[in-house]
């Protein structure tokens, strides 16, 4: 287990060459990748969300593509389309793959795309395949969608439907850096630009092996039961939560906890993993009621209350 911890420590260190701070965010992205899940990054503009994802893709030697979502983006712009190709005087339809055909897909500002376009990502995220016309194309594994969205500038946006939000394993809140970190950012990027060479830490095969290992991490029965109780409590707590999380959240909670244990070099899941991961797993899966909003309660506050109750 110490060897795995060393790998992830090295990965964090390499990421640190480009990204200042945000270790917790990078860890959460890695958790999503190790769980073969997708992550939604929410944060204000300028917090290096895109850079973070691009850097990780580089470190893992994965094919990276970026989709900048706009209201006029069409599903075929994501999935790809058939084009007429002329070769040796003969015209034929040929499939031109879209940016979804990559290992790491960054769907930037996903809430700016129309629901029709957003749903084009659904099949890819869940089934790891794309259907265009009558043909279904398998995506190259490993495959992750890492989407970003801004919590501000909501005008002209299309908030993600619950069904699609549920397909993201984690919703990661990207926060502002502190004073020291921001000072480092200024020093790094406001002076002479240096081309940082990144060392490839993992490859596709390593990643697939690690994904297999995650599922082998043992978990105690009481910790497993606590995870399920936490998810069930989101459905039972009608005082503040209108709609609770689905069983997908329970699966995600266990799997993500196992991935965190692996990253931290532990051979068992801890309650601390649940406490830390309950927020990114549940915050996009619950809908607060009017009473909670009237009180100024955030989703994280509601989750904290549940965690405090279920020890």
């Amino acid at each position: 287990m110490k060897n795995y911890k060393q790998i992830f420590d090295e990965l964090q260190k390499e990421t640190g060459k480009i990204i200042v701070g945000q270790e917790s965010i990078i860890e959460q992205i890695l958790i999503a990748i190790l769980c073969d899940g997708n992550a939604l990054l929410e944060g204000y503009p300028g917090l290096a969300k895109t850079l973070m994802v691009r850097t990780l893709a580089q470190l893992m030697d994965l094919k990276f593509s970026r989709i900048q979502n706009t209201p006029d983006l069409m599903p075929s712009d994501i999935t790809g389309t058939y084009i007429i190709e002329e070769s040796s005087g003969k015209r034929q339809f040929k499939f031109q793959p879209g940016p979804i055909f990559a290992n790491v897909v960054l769907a930037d500002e996903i809430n700016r795309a129309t629901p029709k376009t957003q749903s084009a990502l659904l099949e890819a995220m869940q089934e790891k395949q794309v259907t265009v016309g009558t043909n279904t194309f398998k995506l190259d594994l490993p495959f992750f969608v890492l989407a970003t969205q801004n919590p501000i500038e909501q005008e002209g946006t299309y908030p993600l439907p619950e069904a699609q939000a549920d397909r993201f394993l984690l919703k990661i809140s990207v926060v502002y850096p502190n004073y020291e970190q921001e000072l480092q950012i200024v020093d790094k990027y406001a002076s002479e630009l240096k081309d940082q060479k990144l060392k490839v830490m993992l490859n596709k095969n390593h990643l697939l092996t690690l994904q297999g290992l995650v599922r082998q991490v043992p978990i105690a029965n009481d910790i497993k039961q606590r995870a399920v109780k936490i998810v069930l409590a989101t459905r039972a707590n009608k005082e503040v939560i209108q709609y609770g999380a689905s069983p997908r959240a329970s699966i995600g909670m266990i799997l993500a906890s196992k991935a965190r244990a692996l990253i931290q070099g532990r051979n068992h899941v801890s309650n601390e993993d649940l406490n830390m991961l309950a927020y990114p797993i549940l915050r996009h899966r619950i809908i607060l009621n009017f009473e909670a909003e009237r009180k100024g309660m955030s989703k994280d506050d509601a989750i904290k209350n549940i965690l405090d109750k279920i020890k």
Partner: protein
Amino acid sequence: MKQFSNVVKEINKTLNEMILFENIVNTTLVFLVFYLILSVMDFHPLLASIPSLMYLGFYSYMSSKSSKPLIIEGKYAPLREKLRTAADNVGMNNPIAEELEYEVTTEMKNVGLSMFINPKILSYKIFAAIILSFMIIFAATLDLKLLEFARQKVPDIFDTKNLKGVGNFVAVKLNTSEDIYGKNDVAKLGDKELNIRIKPVDFKVNVREDGEATQQEFETVFPKELAVKETVAYEENIPQEQQELVKNYFKKLAEG
């Protein structure tokens, strides 16, 4: 893998034995406390076995349900969450689980039995048991009765006023006495009064204290006022003029 399942079995066995020992010590204390209370309240002291057995049963059930790995984790922090994870996943065949099992087995060597026995508390309990035992002995020797609930008045079922019967008999009220030795005159045998001492603790008669049995000579004494009373015929009580009528009545009754 098999080795670790043996470790788990050993943990459960050892902890069950220790919990049982602790429960027995506690039950003994409960028994002694109730025994003392019941004896000074003049109830049958063996009734103390009821709450004691209830205590033993309840705590044995509760401890059988408790998670033994959790008890060990509570005493030895490095095993926190590891031991229960390993115990819950016995039989899981993968390198991570095996590594965990090896780690737990190694750490278990640092767990001593002394961690689960608090000698201070145990000695307090044993000391309390000794004190209680002495108190019971003194209370019994001194026949100490603070409250006498048990010795309530026996319902007067032999009350002669309520007795109804046929015939010419006299109901006799039993003489009940709180004196277990009885009246002095009852215990007289000839001219000598028996000196019997019954120990209140075990209710046994110590024959040795009575000394050697002595041969007593008995005299046959016939009661002086012994007399036979003449029987009375009913006929004599019937008036002369009605005797014939009664005789005929019974005659007809016999014929008919």
